[in-house]
């Protein structure tokens, strides 16, 4: 139930029975061959798994250090790794007899992935999104609506992802009898961080198999961006017991010494929010702070409890990359490989490029390219002009 002291179930009493129900249902389907086959079927034929593990030869040559491989989650349906989790949880919700899905979204990637799963499996879908984000991500709002989802613009608090989560929880407190709350990252009360990790672990499992096929070896290092941390834990988890460096990259925004960043592990303190004990950006009283990153998907004041634990036991390292560095990486990958990374993934890429030069040519770095950058073109365009 916990990752060391992290995680737990800090929720109002009314949510205890639905969370217990969810935990039990999840245990059932984990062993259920038919369910797993169905999940595999949709991941393969609908979402587009397995995704390629691509050797970025041009980028590698240009940097002149370790070989850089990209795990191409950006090629999945919907344009990001989020669909691994939404298909899994939507099938789980159906198994539990729920007819409605609610979700939170920041940039809109998880909202879109939930709308896709909802439409695919014939479930009513409602997505909560901070009004600031609704304004910033109009295209994704339109996509969700086109897919039949209802989008609620959240006007409370800082009007971003954390407030969208609050609002989704408020909905679920009143609707749990027929509704599943489809959380988009490895955050929230137990068992969510475990469920989301398991559904996302397909990334790491594939990577391992693919890289052994190509290189005959495990990578030396895996780099992934961390907001809530679902793509990172997804690629890290199958390597936890291997001799592989795991590096999570948080958003330093306008600088880790300013107040405008989202680096909750590197710069936050232990706290309790959204049902879990983890690291949060907060003031001395425990009020949660407003965060910033150019990548809306990293713009969250907390982090999944398993990352907090991996940091505490020093199994994974957590570092930061700022807005400018991420933008540079975005441009670099576009130029060298004709691949537009999501600004979130560009954080991981920026750090990988930095350390690749210091590593030897026979070493291997895998970067989780968690999403594609089309959604960010407007932001990048504005920033570069």
């Amino acid at each position, binding site marked *: 139930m916990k990752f060391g002291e992290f995680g*737990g179930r800090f929720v109002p009493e*009314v949510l205890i029975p639905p969370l217990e129900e969810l935990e039990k249902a999840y245990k059932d389907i984990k062993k259920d061959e038919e369910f797993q086959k169905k999940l595999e079927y949709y991941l393969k034929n609908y979402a587009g798994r397995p995704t390629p593990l691509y050797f970025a030869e041009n980028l590698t040559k240009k940097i002149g250090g370790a070989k850089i491989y990209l795990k191409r989650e950006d090629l999945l349906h919907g344009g990001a790794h989020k669909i691994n989790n939404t298909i899994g949880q939507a099938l789980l919700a159906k198994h539990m007899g729920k007819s409605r899905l609610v979700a939170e979204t920041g940039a809109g990637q998880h909202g879109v992935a939930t709308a896709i799963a909802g439409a695919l499996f014939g479930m009513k879908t409602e997505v909560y999104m901070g009004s600031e984000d609704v304004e910033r991500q109009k295209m994704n709002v339109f996509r969700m609506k086109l897919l039949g989802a209802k989008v609620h613009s959240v006007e409370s*608090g800082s009007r971003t992802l954390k407030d969208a989560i609050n609002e989704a929880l408020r909905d679920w407190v009143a609707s749990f009898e027929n509704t599943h709350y489809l959380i988009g990252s490895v955050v929230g009360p137990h068992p969510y961080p475990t469920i989301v990790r398991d559904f996302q672990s397909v990334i790491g499992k594939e990577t391992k198999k693919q890289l052994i096929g190509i290189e005959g070896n495990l990578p030396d290092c895996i780099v992934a961006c961390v907001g809530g941390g679902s793509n990172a834990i997804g690629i890290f988890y199958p390597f936890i017991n291997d001799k592989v460096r795991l590096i999570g990259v948080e958003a330093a925004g306008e600088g880790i010494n300013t107040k405008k960043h989202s680096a909750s592990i590197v710069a936050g303190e232990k706290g*309790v929010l959204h*049902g879990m004990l983890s690291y949060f950006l907060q003031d001395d009283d425990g009020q949660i702070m407003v965060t910033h990153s150019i990548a809306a998907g990293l713009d969250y004041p907390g982090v999944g409890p398993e990352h907090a634990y991996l940091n505490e036991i020093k199994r994974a390292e957590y570092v930061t990359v700022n807005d400018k560095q991420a933008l540079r990486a975005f441009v670099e990958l576009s130029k060298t490989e004709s691949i537009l990374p999501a600004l979130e993934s560009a954080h991981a890429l920026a750090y990988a490029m930095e350390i690749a030069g210091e590593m030897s040519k026979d070493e291997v770095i895998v970067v989780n390219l968690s999403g594609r950058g089309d959604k960010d073109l407007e932001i990048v365009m504005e920033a570069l002009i």
Partner: protein
Amino acid sequence: MTEYRMFKPPALITFITAGYPNIKATLEFMLSLDKHADVIELGMPFSDPMADGKVIQKANYRALKAGTKIKDVFNVVKEFREYSNTPVILMGYYNLVYKRGVERFIKEANTSGVDGMIIVDLPLEEAEEYLRVCEKYDMGTVFLAAPNTPEERLRMIDEASSAFVYLISLYGTTGARNKISELAFNLLNKAKKVCRKPLAVGFGVSKPKHVKDLIEVGVDGVVVGSAIVEIIEKYGENAAKELEKKVRELKDAI
């Protein structure tokens, strides 16, 4: 036999958010409530009040905007103690307690004259340290139960609650409703069978008739929150008179 430690039934428990619209007004409002209320529940403003409806969310937001700190909440209770012995309970979210350190928080609350605590997002499983510290400082504890809480859990909640058990009348967040739902009465019947501590019903309780109906079926206390905070929303700093009027109406229904 029910053990009454904080109040004698039937009791009116009234809630306001500390620091809304500012901390100076809070003391005045507490004194207004005190004219008729049996217990004053003081909400500690939090940046992410996920169990609260629109009215109390806004109150939290405004209180923080006005610069309200936890220290101010303790101080206002301390000042209130110069005028009144009416029990004061603090309601809030766990991060405020956790961040300060459970021991330091409860100790400061105790020194300030706080009688009890309600932490909305702290279920029993996570409350070991909190319970130990509250016992040490003789701080009253209040845990919540919902209409879907199984009997066995209700028993544990009763055990852990030294002041009273807070029964949530519905599935949803705080906020005034037109009617007390059947769920509340069913939960009350279930709770009466297993609980030894006083039972108070809250969430959605807003009108004198609600209060009357609940007291008639044997509730020990009723909690009215959003309906009172709405008055502050309407009258701002000048809400004291209207608050007193509202509380008298509610008390008259008992």
